[in-house]
Structures are given as C-alpha cells and as structure tokens.
C-alpha cells in the first residue's frame, strides 16, 4: 500500500511526513555539526566501533591465547610489536584492539538495559502518578543514594564470573538517573493538550504511553544514553580491574589488572599499562562529548549555557 503512494511525491500524508522528517533530520545534523567537540566525539567513537567490528581482520585470535603468544615477555615497543608485549609475550596493541570488542559490547548492552528499565519505570511513574509514582520514585531514590560502585561490586561478587554478570551489575546500578529524567519529561508531555485529545478519542493507558509519551521522551533519553555508555564503559573496566570480570575474556580493565599483577607498575613497563587506560579514557570522552552535543541540540535552554 505504501509503495505506489510514495512514488507521487508530496501529496499523500505519509509522503509529507517523510519529507518533514528528512528535513528535521538535516536541521538536526546542522545544529549538531556546529559543535566541534561533538564532531570530535563522533569521529573518535566511529574509529573505535570500526576497530572493534573489524578486529578479526587484522588480529589473529590464536595469538591472543596465553599459549599461542608469538613474542617474548615484556618486550618494549618495536616494529613487530608497536606497543610491546605483555607478560605472556602477546602483542599489547592486539590485546587493546581486541579488548575494544568486550568493552564496547558491555558498554552498549549495560546502557540498553538501564535505559529500558529507567524509561519503563519513569514513564509508568509519570503517567499514573499517585501511589504508583510515590512507590516507584522511593525505590529509585534509594538506588540513587547507594554508592554505585559498592552496589555493582556486591552484585558482581555474588553472581558467577561472566560478561553477562558485569552487564547486569552495571545495568541495575545506573538506571535511576534515567528514571528520574524520564518521569520529569513524561509529566511535561502529559500536560499538553494533544494528550487530552487522545483521551477524548478513547485512547487507553497503553496507547497514550506508547504512542504519545514515549516518542516525545525519546530525544532526552537519547542524549542521556550516550552519556551513560561512557559511565558504563568506565564501570566495566573498574569491575574487571577489581578482578570481578570474566577471566577468559580480554577487556581493557582486565589487561590493566594483569599489568598490575605482573608488576608493571613497579618495574616501569609503561607500554603494558598506558594503552588500555588511554583507550578507556578516549572512548569515554568521545561518548561524553557526543552526549553533551546531543543535549545541546535537543535542549536549547541548555545550549545557551555551553
């Protein structure tokens, strides 16, 4: 049905809607591109994502196992090993490139989990109000007050050591901020007249929440999400560093933990320690810059402040 209609350019409602969306997107991009830090973040982010996805093309997973290591231990940077080798003789550059896969995966999945949880709780609390809201927000505040690292560490410690555990531990800790934000936004959206129109036309709770509130809450959530990925990636490396990660996977925090255990700190083997930390910092910074740029575009009041 949509096929033939879209052929005859802007006459149908749907085509008009698409045209409007396309223009809105272009305007959005123009706004975003004006923020140089945001562009820098976007570039950094793309580089790391491409690197993580393409890692198998230039890293041989066999050489990343402790037994299949190609070099000798603790070699300083050379042509063969641009960033030197670790305790087992593995190339540190390869390790860092491969580590991007786990760090980014955990960052994205933990964020997805916490955003889904936060959005659901925020919308339900904002939509129903009253007792539902009071109870949900009390729980949210309680989570907000708990020291996030302590809670994540406790959760990671009581579950089995796996990447899924880390994702859950981070996801459960970081959702409250999103929930508060979404609730506030929901209240603002529901005060608008078009919601009343929807009620008058016989819409139910589910319809109002899904079709009217959710799409209007999403932009704010998007900016928050980008910022949360940075938090999640740092949290992942922290948990791995504390020895709570999956010992069989390679992650940036895990490499740092190995480096510390191998005495890289006291013997000054900087090439073992600097690259993974730098990678964490760059990725986190990229996401933060993107998130702030998005916030600036989506929330003009904030933009005045930046």
């Amino acid at each position: 049905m949509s096929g033939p209609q879209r052929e005859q350019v802007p006459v149908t409602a749907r085509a008009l809607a698409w045209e409007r969306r396309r223009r809105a997107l272009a305007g959005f991009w123009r706004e975003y591109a004006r923020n140089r830090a945001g562009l820098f973040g976007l570039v950094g982010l793309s580089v790391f994502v491409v690197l993580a996805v393409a890692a198998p093309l230039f890293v041989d997973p066999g050489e990343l196992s402790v037994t299949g290591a190609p070099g000798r231990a603790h070699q300083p940077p050379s042509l063969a090993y641009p960033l030197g080798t670790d305790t087992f003789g593995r190339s540190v550059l390869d390790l860092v490139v491969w580590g991007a896969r786990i760090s980014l995966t955990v960052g994205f999945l933990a964020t997805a989990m916490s955003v889904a949880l936060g959005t659901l709780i925020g919308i339900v609390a904002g939509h129903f109000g009253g007792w539902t809201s009071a109870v949900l927000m009390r729980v949210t505040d309680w989570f907000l007050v708990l020291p996030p690292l302590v809670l994540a560490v406790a959760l990671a410690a009581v579950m089995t050591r796996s990447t899924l555990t880390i994702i859950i531990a981070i996801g459960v800790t970081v959702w409250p901020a999103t929930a508060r934000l979404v609730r506030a936004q929901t209240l603002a959206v529901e005060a608008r007249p078009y919601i009343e129109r929807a009620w008058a036309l016989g819409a139910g709770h589910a319809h109002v929440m899904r079709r009217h509130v959710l799409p209007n809450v999403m932009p704010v959530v998007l900016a928050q999400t980008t910022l949360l990925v940075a938090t999640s990636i740092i949290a992942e490396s922290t948990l791995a560093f504390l020895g709570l990660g999956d010992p069989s996977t390679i992650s940036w925090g895990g490499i740092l933990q190995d480096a510390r255990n191998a005495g890289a700190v006291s013997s000054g083997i900087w090439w073992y320690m600097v690259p993974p930390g730098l990678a964490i910092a760059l990725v986190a910074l990229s996401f933060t810059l993107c998130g702030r740029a998005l916030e600036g575009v989506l929330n003009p009041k904030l933009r005045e402040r930046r």
Partner: protein
Amino acid sequence: MTAPAHSEAPAGHGAGSGEQREGIVRGLRYIGAKLLTAAVSLFAVMVTSFFLFRILPGDPVRSMTQGREVTVEQEQELRRQFGLDQPLWQQFLDYCAGLFRFDLGVSYQYRIPVAELIGERIGPTVLLAGTGTLIAALLGLVLGTRAGWRRGSATDRVNTGVALLLWSVPSFWLGLLLIVVLASGAGWVPGLFPTGGMMTPGTTGLLDVALDVAHHLVLPVATMVAVVYAQYLMIMRSSLLDEMGADYLTTARAKGLRDALVLRRHAVPNALLPTVTLIFLNLGQVVGGVILVETVFAWPGLGSLFYSGLTVPDLPLVQALFVLFASAVILMNLLADLVYPLLDPRVRT
C-alpha cells in the same frame, strides 16, 4: 523561585503567633518525613545486604579451610561458630540484633571481630576521603565559578575541557600512572613519593609521623581530587549560569558595583546552594573513588579492606562494609536535607 502564594494566603492582619506555629508544624513535618525516609532506606539496606550476601556462590567454610586438612567435625564446629547451621530467619534476626549492638560477626579471613577491623581501618579512610573531598570541593567551586562567570572564554574552555577529560579517565588507572611517573622512579628519575601504604615503618615522634603520613597522602589525594573535582566544577558552573540572567544581578550592576563584587556578594552565594546539595548527593561516588584509590595505593583503610574481603570472599566483612558505606551516604544525605532549608529560605515552603 518566588514563595508560593497559597502558603502565605491566610496572613494579613491575623498574622503573628498563628502563622509562626503553622511554620513550626510545617518544619517538624518536613524533618519527620526526611527522618522516616532515611530510616526506611537504612532498613532496606540492611535487608538487601543480608539476602544479597546469602546467595554468594561457594561455601564460606570451604574457603576458610582452603588448603588445610579438616575433619567433618571441625567443619561442623566452624559452621556452628559462625551461625551458618541456623535457619535463615534465625540468622536474619541475629544479624539485625547484632547490627544494633555493633556486633558485625567475625571476619572469615582475619578471624577477629569485624567491628574491631573497621575500628582499626576507619581513621585512614576518613583522613583520605575527607582531605580529598575538601580539596576537590574547593577546587571545583573556585574553578567552576571562574569558568561560568566568563562563559566561552579561554579559561572556561580549558577548565571545562580538562574537567571532562579527567572525568573520562578511570581513577585507578590515573593512580597507577602517578605511581609509575612519580613514585616508582623509572630509570635515573628518583621516586619522589612512596608507592603505597600510609607511613614508613619505624617512624617515631609526632611531627615525623605527621610529615611521613602527609608525604604518603599526596598521591592518593591527588588521584581522588582529579576524579571528583570535575563534577563539582561542572555543577558549580551550570548553577552559576542559571543565576546569570537573574534580575538581581542587573540591579547590582546598576547600583555601580564592581564586577568582582557582583560575583562574590550576589551571584556566588545563590549559585552555591544547589551545588552544596549536589556535593552531598554525589558522596556515593566518593565512596567508590576511595575503594579504588585505596586498592591502588595499598592505603590501610576501609576501601582496601573491602577489596581484600571480595577476593576470599569474606562474607561478614563485605556485608558489614556494604552496610557501612551505604548508611554513611544515606546519613550524609539526611544531613544535607535537614541543613538545606536553614541555608536557603526559598525552599521553606
């Protein structure tokens, strides 16, 4: 930000003692609500910690007796000693009763009461966290004010940039780098600071000990400050920017006040209020920072104790520290809630 009309509506000629009494009742109700919330939060922490650590994988008795020959009777005896043979509800009641008597059980790995261990270790943590938070707050407030007041200037861009960068750096990695650069002494460079611990063994004399501890304190505090101050800077900056457009600043300028005075006497006091609350709200992150910094620098405080408890796992120890960390943050938040109306008359509604 103006006082809502309805609360002052019945004023007029019948004001005086009636309104005053109403104010006191409202104040008491506010305090009561905050106390109740904190009490509920504390209870929730107690319950959570109890059940969370009961589902730990691995048998605590096994990990205690690891590497030693033990008979079944000895295992039974250990189980009885630590109360692990009781039904769950009995264990929970004993645990609650114990918390109120500061009887937090016996550490599996150190074999001494947890309360005693915490008593030994709490001093260094308070010293580290206190010094770090104080310096970070001062630095964040001062730099945030300067950045916000001259928005878009070079000062602002540099300060915001550095803050964002430091916020993105994992604190433990920053600590490791500081050790490598300033403490380990790579090659011919001498180590300027100790690599870890709180004092050199064998130091005596009050002044010498104080100086030695201060020397050991430099790098851990620097790491903590670097990670924490960025948030305070950003909060203070945006809080000041919120005040920038306010009419009272225009009035102050119109009076002919110098720029510095407008900032110091008018803008900063108002911008400071929300920032101070947020500093209290963010104390949870300070706790996280303390755990990492103490672990990296082998600082003999609660954070490194928590870390050592995790690896065993030492159930009573980790559980007690979980409760302690969470309660400390809840109580500090309660304090902020109670003090805030005294500082800011605008929220006394």
